[in-house]
């Protein structure tokens, strides 16, 4: 295996000197400069009753101008430069990224500094951004993508009662209470040098790094009090929350349970191999995909995760900027058909009362249990491990990605996660992977969230709660072409017992309030 991409990483440097930590990645052949600031202040730092405050503060810092320039003037300044400024707030960090051409270093550097040292905090920008964030929580998340909705609902269930529960965008009641004064105060207390990391990559001048470093060292020092990330709740059996809405064409499903392992731990590499085989994101060679989509065409795809995966509907590869110390395992089953939809499409299915959700869940859980119980074959282990050794290098194809993953590495106490992971994977044994699955994976206790049509909610609840047989329902045209072995497997899967202990139905209007 050729590992020459790693050469790029060897020239990355870290300077843990004088306050803030600096990660630099000089790329003298590039036309571009990337600057990143990662604050240790994600949504878990939102004060109770003001959920969404960190995200709103970050939005206002970048889209609210400075004390010298209004937001409109900043837009005018940046327009011809095509510079990209964006922020992302996650549970434990807020990351600001600035991508610009090397020609514009002298314009961007003072502006980047002003965003934080002399923020605008103008009332009209605050009202605008607050209204948009509230609109996202009240309307957009519920009505734009049922897949993203079910993912957010799963986190709400997993972390209920903790500082990890609410979406980074917040809650209705929390956002309504936020004032501009609260934003100013949050900025002073939470955007500090404590844990701040400055990243720089590309073709930047000798003085640029020092200028930025000196400027950001002048941010407040912070209180020294560290927030502790909320841990995922342990489900009692399988606990299902069905979110009922009108006019949903499918049932969007996420499942999950706590996972006490992150990138900092030695077992993470072993779990990565196990997970890649079971459900590598957007890969047709994973087991869940083959069983649910490829063999049965129940939906568009089925994947599993051992850490947060940002915007899986759009991203083919993992994104940096979402490091977390509190973790969980999850399975994503993309929308499957409801009974109402199937009956409309195929008259021969007029007698069914439940769509494909129950069967799909049984299939996914059965596959996970089988691999956990039986372990990998040597061939599957080697193929999957070797795949990952090559694949992880695709995570860092651009300067922004290289820099982002280096900065995430520091969060986990690692120097260079991608390079180190390659070494870990190289040393991994079949026994390591099989042992890790047995240690961390199980199928008896999980949370499940399903966003579905109101016509499906009650029948699905009854089917799940009573562990009813859930035969797979194919159209006659498809069924006639399927082999007997597959139909036999369907019969077995339809009876797989699930340890369902609780099923509740929540009206869509009641979520994230």
């Amino acid at each position: 295996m050729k590992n020459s991409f790693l050469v790029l990483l060897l020239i990355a440097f870290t300077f843990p000197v004088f306050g803030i930590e600096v990660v630099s990645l000089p790329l003298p052949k590039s036309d571009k400069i990337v600057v990143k600031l990662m604050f240790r202040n994600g949504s878990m730092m939102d004060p109770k009753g003001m959920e969404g405050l960190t995200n709103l503060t970050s939005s206002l810092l970048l889209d609210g101008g400075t004390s010298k320039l209004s937001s409109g003037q900043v837009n005018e300044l940046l327009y011809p430069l095509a510079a990209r400024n964006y922020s992302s707030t996650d549970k434990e960090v807020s990351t600001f990224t600035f991508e610009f051409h090397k020609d514009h270093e002298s314009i961007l550097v003072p502006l980047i500094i002003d965003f934080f040292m002399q923020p605008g905090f103008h009332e009209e920008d605050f009202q605008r951004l607050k209204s948009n964030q509230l609109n996202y929580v009240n309307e957009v998340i519920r009505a734009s993508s049922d897949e993203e909705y079910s993912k957010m609902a799963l986190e709400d269930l997993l972390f209920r009662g903790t500082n990890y529960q609410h979406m980074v965008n917040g809650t209705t009641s929390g956002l309504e209470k936020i004032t501009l004064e609260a934003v100013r105060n949050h900025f002073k207390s939470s955007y500090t040098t404590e844990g701040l990391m400055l990243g720089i990559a590309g073709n930047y001048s000798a003085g640029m790094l020092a200028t930025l470093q000196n400027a950001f060292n002048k941010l407040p020092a912070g209180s020294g009090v560290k927030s502790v990330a909320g841990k995922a709740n342990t489900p009692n059996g399988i606990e299902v929350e069905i979110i009922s809405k009108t006019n949903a064409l499918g049932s969007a499903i996420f499942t999950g349970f706590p996972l006490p392992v992150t990138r900092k731990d030695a077992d993470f590499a072993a779990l990565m191999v196990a997970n890649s085989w079971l459900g590598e994101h957007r890969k047709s060679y994973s087991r869940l995909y083959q069983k649910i989509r490829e063999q049965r065409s129940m939906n568009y795809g089925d994947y599993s995760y051992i850490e947060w995966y940002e915007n899986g509907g759009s991203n083919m590869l993992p994104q940096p900027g979402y490091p977390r110390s509190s973790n969980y395992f999850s399975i994503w089953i993309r929308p499957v058909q409801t009974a109402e939809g199937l009956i409309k499409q195929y008259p021969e299915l007029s007698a069914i009362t439940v769509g494909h959700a129950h069967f799909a869940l049984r299939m996914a859980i059965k596959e996970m249990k089988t691999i956990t119980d039986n372990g990998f074959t040597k061939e599957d282990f080697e193929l999957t491990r070797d795949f990952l050794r090559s694949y992880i290098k695709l995570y860092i194809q651009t300067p922004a990605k290289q820099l982002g993953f280096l900065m995430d590495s520091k969060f986990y106490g690692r120097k260079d996660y991608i390079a180190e992971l390659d070494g870990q994977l190289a040393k991994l044994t079949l026994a390591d992977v099989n042992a890790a699955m047995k240690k961390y994976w199980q199928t008896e206790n999980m949370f499940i969230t399903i966003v579905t049509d109101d016509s499906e909610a009650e029948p699905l609840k009854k089917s799940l709660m009573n562990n009813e047989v859930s035969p797979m329902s194919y159209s006659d045209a498809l069924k006639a072409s399927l082999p007997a072995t597959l139909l036999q497997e369907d019969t077995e899967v339809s009876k797989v017992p699930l340890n369902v202990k609780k099923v509740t139905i929540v009206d869509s209007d009641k979520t994230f309030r």
Partner: protein
Amino acid sequence: MRILTPIILLCLLTATVTAKDILPYPIQQKDMPNGLKVVTIPYDSPGLAAFYIVVRVGSRDEIEKGKTGFAHFFEHMMFRGTDKYSKEQYSDVMKSIGASANANTSLDRTVYHMTGNASKLETMFELEADRFQFLKYSVQDFKTEAGAVKGEYTKNNSSPYSRLYESVLNTAFDIHTYKHTTMGFLEDIVDMPNQYDFSLEFFKRYYRPEYCTIIVVGDVTSDRVNALAEKYFGKWERGNYVTSILQEPVQTATRYFHLQVPQFPPYLDIKFKTPAFSLENNDYHALSILSQVLFSERSELYKKLVVKEQTARNISGGVYPTRDPYLFSASVSLVKAESMAALKKEILDAIEQSKKTPVSAEILKATKDRIRYSFAMSMDSPDAIANAVALYTWVTGDPSSINRSYELFESVTAADIQRVAEKYLVPSRMTIATISPDEKPILD
């Protein structure tokens, strides 16, 4: 009735583009005798290569009734194996080379791509050549895959924007195949399992060398790429099918579509029929610049409606490069549905103003700078470069037209912008689509 056929706009000879072009890397192109084009772009990405195949077939080519969505469905079928590599073997080999691979389909094209270890380039060639020439799937696989397409439709359908888009095309077009989305109509998707025989015909028509361009970017040389292309694609037989697409009749009046959705941000989408992408004139490029002048975050409209008055959450606009006439778009996400008529007036007034008052030299220069810098900064990986070249390949048939297109952006004058606004952004070419909680939108 006019028949549109693929037009090769520039002479396609082996060529190296000079350093003054917008793409700072040489495009090394070889045209094979069977019609296949092979493009190599060496790029400093040690050990990494992006391997793309652009097929100039998309939903535009779905001319038969009941076959909407077929180009996209067929893209799915391309992963279902051959005699040499069953779908399981194909998956195993793909996994063994550790590449990121996928495909996507749009109006005018289907693109297959894999990015991975450059030392595996020969395996990439072998796998792709095998399925592009010898694809073979069972009736069972065909019927099964149709369900996955329905799953894709189902996931998309939860977005009101997705539902609106489907209806906007259906409203704006009468007979051109842009009337349907690339995903297709649900009734046609449900019927896909019954179209096995047509799928064989589809493969025979379009998966031919004259429809395809291979683009390889990264740690590669053209000698190596061309040798592999000859070895694996050299015996691929040229086809002879040409799609006959009905020309859309002239629209004579504004059209409307409304989607009633409660508890969702009201939305106004104004479309105008605009010309196909062309390198013969700068109409597309002038419209593209105008859309940025009118609707970017720097625009007067954005400052007024989004920042000051806050009646809009966002505004955006643009024009998409297509082979046949398509749509210019101006969209607003509203704070309140009651503002629908006022915001419609604001947008139409701004468009009317653009016909009367020339864009200032300062804003025109700033917009051209923005386009140039945006492109330069986006060229930071083999994938990004391959994608950019792929776009110009499918829309013109000529990979190096990317450089000519950016020359046309530079050529746009304030008078050009007034001219295209006057010519294309008129009520008789307009379709107004809306989302609001109301049964009918209040537009006047």
